[in-house]
């Protein structure tokens, strides 16, 4: 098991390297490069949970390895005869239980932050279709599909999600957001991206034949650029051909 853990750590490192040095605009995630307060919150909650939970993994695997090495049958070896130990049994019931309470408290705080967004700067309605996303900006009367979602940097974006056909799930790992889009129901999520750039994601709920190709592309732009983009969108549908091609390629 130790080897495996070394392998896993190496894996993390390698993929991180590949992600930073690799092909054009690789997908980013909340663990390596969290974008915005929500993603950072998810990450610190994750690290905290790891600190409380992982010792049990190492303890159990360590004890197992120790037993395998130490208690290998030997001719004339002595056998222990104990069959129970109440104190020990109470301990290994109570300590994990208390650890879980300790884990639960900050988790609930983070959940609250996920569920109660700060004051919204921009509302976007996201509608899932087989197999593309439609984005609507009610405040500006804009809607389009099969293009990147464009949002201003440093602003709180709240999402209302729904679907016209099957269940989809809108997932951008860098933002720490994943929310199902159900037919006949509106669900909510929010994020706040601070740095301009391209952020990638994909549909996370099996939605049919081309589920794997239902990519998500989010363009975070400086607020001024966002304003001019809105104006341009309102004037008429003049989609940048390079942009459309990019979205389709994912």
């Amino acid at each position, binding site marked *: 098991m130790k080897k495996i853990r070394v392998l896993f750590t190496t894996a993390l490192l390698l993929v991180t390297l590949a992600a930073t040095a690799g092909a054009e605009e690789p997908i980013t995630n909340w663990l390596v490069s969290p974008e915005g307060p929500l993603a950072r919150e998810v990450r610190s909650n994750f690290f905290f*949970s790891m600190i409380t939970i992982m010792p049990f993994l190492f303890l159990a695997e360590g004890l197992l390895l120790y037993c395998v090495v130490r208690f290998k049958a030997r001719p004339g070896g002595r056998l*222990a005869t104990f069959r129970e130990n109440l104190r020990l049994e109470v301990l290994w019931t109570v300590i994990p239980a208390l650890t879980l309470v300790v884990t639960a408290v900050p988790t609930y705080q983070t959940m609250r932050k996920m569920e109660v967004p700060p004051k919204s700067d921009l509302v976007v309605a996201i509608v899932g279709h087989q197999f593309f996303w439609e984005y609507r900006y009610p405040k500006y009367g804009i809607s389009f599909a099969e293009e990147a979602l464009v949002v201003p940097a440093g602003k709180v974006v709240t999402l209302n999600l729904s679907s016209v056909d099957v269940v989809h799930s809108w997932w951008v790992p860098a933002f720490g957001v994943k929310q199902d889009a159900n037919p006949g129901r509106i669900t909510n999520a929010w994020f706040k991206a601070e740095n301009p750039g391209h952020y990638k994601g994909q549909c996370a709920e099996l939605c049919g034949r081309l589920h*794997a190709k239902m990519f998500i592309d989010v363009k975070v732009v400086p607020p001024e650029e966002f304003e001019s983009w809105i104006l341009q969108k309102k004037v008429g549908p003049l989609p940048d051909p390079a942009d459309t091609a990019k979205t389709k390629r994912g």
Partner: protein
Amino acid sequence: MSGERPKGLKRWLTTTDHKDIGLLYLWLVLFMAVFGGAFAGLLRAQLSASDLKVLEPDLYNQFLSMHGTLMIFFVIIPAMAGFGNYFVPLLIGARDMAFPKLNALSFWLLLPSAGLMFGSFFVQGGTAQAGWTGYVPLSSRQFSGTPGVDMWILGLHLVGLSSILGAINFIVTIVNMRASGMEYFKMPLFVWTWLVNATLILFATPVLAGALTMALTDRVFGTGFFRPSEGGDPLLWQHLFWFYSHPAVYIMILPGMGIISHVLPTFSQKKLFGYKGMVAAVGGIGFIGFLVWAHHMFTSGIDPRLRAFFAFMTMVIAVPTGVKIFSWLATLWGGQLRFTTAMKFGLGFISLFVMGGISGLTLAVVPFDVQVHDSYYVVAHLHYVLFGGSVMALLAGTFFWFPKMSGRILDEKLGKIIFWLIFIGMNITFLPMHWLGIAGMARRVYTYRPEFEFWNQVSSFGYILLFAGGMLFLYNIFKTLKRGEKATNDPWGAYPLQRTLDWSTSSPPPVENFTRIPEIV
């Protein structure tokens, strides 16, 4: 009841002997596992590079759905039933199950069911493509018009019926047919896990049957149980489905825990540590197992208070699971460990199941779960639990009990190779998936971003090892049946210390198991 047993094919077609029925279950499981495993191979072949065209997307989704369906409903669950059928009556000192004919029916229902599953590939439009979870509306008539889905539903109905009948049989057998002196708290752990398991099946499976019936009438008669336009709700399916399918996770692991609780003490040459605590833990897992289902729905938009409740219960269920792990470790402690193949699989079970348990615990942490839900992280987690847990336990059980069932001992040298191929192959296949999920690879995809290619290649390579291990395992079984080393009544020397009745009778046991019903003191 007793007397001359028919020979050959007639014996197998007409048998009501619990041992024969147990063997029939296990043979069917081997057969289905070959297909379930081959389907997984096709999936791994398609994923061995980004944008491959081994399988067309629709076909990929079909094999994906059927890999899950076969492995869960036709491999793991009936394998547990197979061992349960063979060993529960033996372990409680009974001559047979309480209802031998019902027992036979439970098995034979599986054949038409398997026929429906395989047949559904060949109808127009192919079989179910919405995953083994069959989420609506994707599995509804509008989005999956193929009659393959109806066949899939009917097939699951038959499996469910088989499970329910089996569960009733197990409960009645364990409550009524114990030999004199076999008090509840003298029952071996495998019997306890089956008692709790059968109770879970009895309470959970009818809910699946209800959900499936609604899905079927929605499809066939246009009722709108799951259709918002008719006042229905797709989330209702998710609740009902997981109300069954989460307990089903425990249905798939509890008897495995029972097997491990026989294997570890036997080869540590000690008694099981903390018997009563273990029994309590099994009961606790069974009960709490009914209160965690919505942790499969943390991203679905359910009420936040519901999310908080289910997150907490999911953490709570780790406590009795931890009790079991620590008690097994204490069983090993101070023993004289004999590393037979069964023991290797038993120890492998602990090591892998702990991994799966810990990753399951991280999934109770809602903010993290939301990120990795429906990603490869979950694929990794569920395979550590179902493969690293259930399948390792079943392999341990096979090497452990094969001498009792066949009178011959599986080749231990081959066993050692099989164990290492499977243990290493399992980790190479599934460990990288944890990272892939965190990095953003969704599950149930036929292709992925080029960034994910390397670890997918590693994973597909791991499958080759698993495949080799599986093939060698089959070879070992056939080879041993033909010319394996003969087994005594108690080839592992278990009886003097463990006193479990399976080792007190001949290998294989005679019709009706015991020449004289043993008395337990």
